[in-house]
């Protein structure tokens, strides 16, 4: 691995492995922390994130263009020409056995295909909001775009190790100037699956992703640098409901496909936990 400038600075190759979820939890946390404190590194990540595309969807139509009939008959010809391996497969059994094996193999391969659901965080939108628009609104738009890329599957496959999660939380919290203990961010009926740190126009932005068994992904986002308190408001973005407010120098936002009532109930809990003495390090 080439080492640039500082000995510990991750290479592009490592950053891409980080984005692709190919690193061990420990390496992932370490690189996440480095990105959070190094603007130049964050800029590299931005470029690499911009290099993600909906590859799988783009290539899907090519499958239906395959000359399947010709390929099928070619294979049949090849199979017919195959010399019978002595003593392995009696001819009268072969058709039955092939069918039986085919059924098993199809099952196996269907399962195999699900082993890995590629998660490619296409977070470019987080970093490329138009600068002329309202700043306070922009970060919510960016978050909505980002969360809209999440599915329940995305969150379900993330490794569920509480130590990694606590490290992620501690890292995000220290950047936000908030004490993000599990007790503070665990929400009723929602499973916290991931904590990510972003830099939004120079402000630290923490993105906590939860899985609601009924409605799918829900996110609590916290952004530093909101001086004025503001009471909760409701809005709708990308087919999702949003409740947002500001308190103690931070902007808060809850977003998901769950009901507004549900989000407001969660918002009350969160606001209570981070109110008053709840904010520790002043951002």
């Amino acid at each position: 691995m080439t080492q640039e400038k500082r000995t510990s600075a991750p290479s592009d190759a490592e950053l891409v492995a980080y984005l692709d979820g190919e690193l061990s939890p420990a390496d992932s946390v370490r690189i996440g922390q480095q990105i959070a404190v190094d603007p130049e590194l964050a800029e590299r990540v931005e470029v690499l994130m911009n290099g993600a595309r909906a590859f799988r969807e783009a290539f899907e139509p090519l499958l239906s263009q395959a000359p399947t009939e010709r390929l099928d008959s070619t294979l049949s010809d090849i199979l017919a020409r195959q010399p019978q391996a002595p003593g392995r497969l009696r001819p009268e059994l072969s058709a039955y056995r092939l069918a039986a094996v085919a059924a098993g193999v199809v099952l196996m391969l269907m399962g195999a295909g699900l082993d890995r659901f590629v998660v490619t965080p296409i977070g470019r939108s987080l970093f490329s909001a138009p600068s002329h628009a309202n700043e306070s609104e922009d970060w919510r738009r960016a978050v909505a775009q980002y969360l809209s890329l999440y599915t329940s599957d995305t969150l379900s496959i993330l490794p569920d190790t509480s130590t990694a999660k606590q490290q992620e939380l501690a890292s995000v919290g220290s950047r936000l100037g908030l004490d993000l203990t599990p007790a503070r961010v665990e929400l009723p009926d929602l499973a916290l699956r991931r904590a990510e740190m972003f830099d939004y126009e120079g402000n630290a932005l923490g993105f906590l992703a939860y899985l609601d068994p009924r409605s799918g992904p829900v996110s609590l986002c916290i952004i530093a640098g909101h001086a004025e308190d503001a009471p909760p408001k409701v809005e709708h973005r990308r087919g999702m409901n949003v409740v947002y407010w500001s308190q103690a120098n931070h902007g808060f936002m809850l977003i998901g496909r769950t009901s507004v009532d549900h989000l407001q109930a969660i918002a009350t809990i969160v606001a209570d936990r981070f109110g008053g003495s709840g904010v520790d390090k002043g951002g």
Partner: protein
Amino acid sequence: MPRKSKLAPVRPERINAMQRPPSDLVKAGLRGHLARLWRYGLVLSGRRDVAEDLVQATCVRALERADQFQPGTHLDRWLFSILHSIWLNEVRARQIRQGAGFVDAETSLSFDGARQIEAGILAAQVLREVQNLPEAQRGTVFLVYVEGLSYREAADVLAVPVGTIMSRLAAARDTLGRRTGYRGGRSTTEVGRR
């Protein structure tokens, strides 16, 4: 460093599969992968007829070597590695890349009606971008991001170290990431190294 593949419980059907002779598995499984093999051949060669030849050669080779297939592993990965090695060692040298590659009118118009028109345009754009990548990067992007192989699996298929997979993907994403004018990307400012 990339982690090893996740441990997952072995499914009952896979246990059954492990008890069958490998050649049976290959014979029975091949047919289900023809379209994906053809697509991989198309990505490598950029030509539909060559892709078809590659699939045929892969089938022959796979059946010849069926006893080498390890039951319980992914047949599709094994077939990809055969196709890749045939392409690399036997076909590529005498193949002069020509024509429009895998992006053409047929591709961009093959979606189901107006519902998908916007998606179709974006998809064609993505295909074009991938097609313009250097061959090694293109194949690696395809295996990891389209076929969903882990870095380790892609390294095995391509017979290269995992670090090579990582650097190819990084180079590809750097190229694509610095392209301007992509959907929602920055259009006026240069995004890149300082």
